[in-house]
């Protein structure tokens, strides 16, 4: 089963390079690229490390179902709060 993730979005949002994220979670930079492209499913340990790096729960970064776009989600939250 493919595992979807938001690593690319989170990286762009925080202006973080692949190499920086990679060195902080202890993998090669190319591994981050493969993760973002969905060509590699991370181990539980790596998934938790990445989520911890972004300060988010693991289900906010990885999901077995495709993520909705962040803009859609933010708009819906705003609508619900209004």
């Amino acid at each position, binding site marked *: 089963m493919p595992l979807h993730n938001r690593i690319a979005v989170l990286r762009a949002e925080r202006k973080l390079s692949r*190499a*920086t994220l990679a060195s902080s979670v202890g*993998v*090669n*930079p*190319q591994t981050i690229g493969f993760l973002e492209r969905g060509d590699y499913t991370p181990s539980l340990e790596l998934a938790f490390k990445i989520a911890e790096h972004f300060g988010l729960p693991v289900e906010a970064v990885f999901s077995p179902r495709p993520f909705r776009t962040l803009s859609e989600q933010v708009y819906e939250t705003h609508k619900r709060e209004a």
Partner: protein
Amino acid sequence: MPVNVKNGNKERSWFWKKIGFWFVPARSEKLGPEEWAKVRKVSRTGTRRARRLLFALLWVPTLAFEIAVSLRVVRIDPWAGLISAAWLTALLGLWVRSLRIGFAQVSLDDRAVTEYGAEFDALKEKQRGDLFQRAVRDGLFGRVKVDEREAELRLRAQGAAYRLLGPALLVFVTGYWAVCLFGPFEATRSALAVTAVVVTWLAALVLAAPTMIRMWTQPDEPEETAAVGE
């Protein structure tokens, strides 16, 4: 050899521009933009599938060449054949090793960000030279980081190779027996049959090895905890 960084590559000899600079990493700080572009391109070789396919295809004729040379030499003198086979196998082994290291090696661009926190183009010549020398050294000594993805890919490739090895060994052993039994070797047939038995048992040993290793290493199944047990 005229080397003048300020004036670019125009004053450099053809040999230096095409070949020379690869063999003098100690002078890497004197490389020009043209050479740096080549070096960076090569450091990303492992990431391009087309190039990897080319290398994989090249492996078959290389192996065929090696076998042909060894067979030719062994007919002249068995000891020379052994030496040539050992040398060529060692060379092939080194080539495969360098490819394996190349897959796990981080490109110069990523090294620049990780080690200096800046893009490669923004680094000073000295820093670029240091990065390049470290990359060459790591490549030579195989000091690469085998992270979980690299380890998994290696394991998967080894599994696929082993799955191919099973039928290939069966075909080889069957063919070996056929040659031993029906080939025109009346005088040495019994000696050849002995080697065929040895080859058969070696193949059996190789094919049974994963199961034996699992039998040796697999832990006992955990028992149900008392609180849940009936």
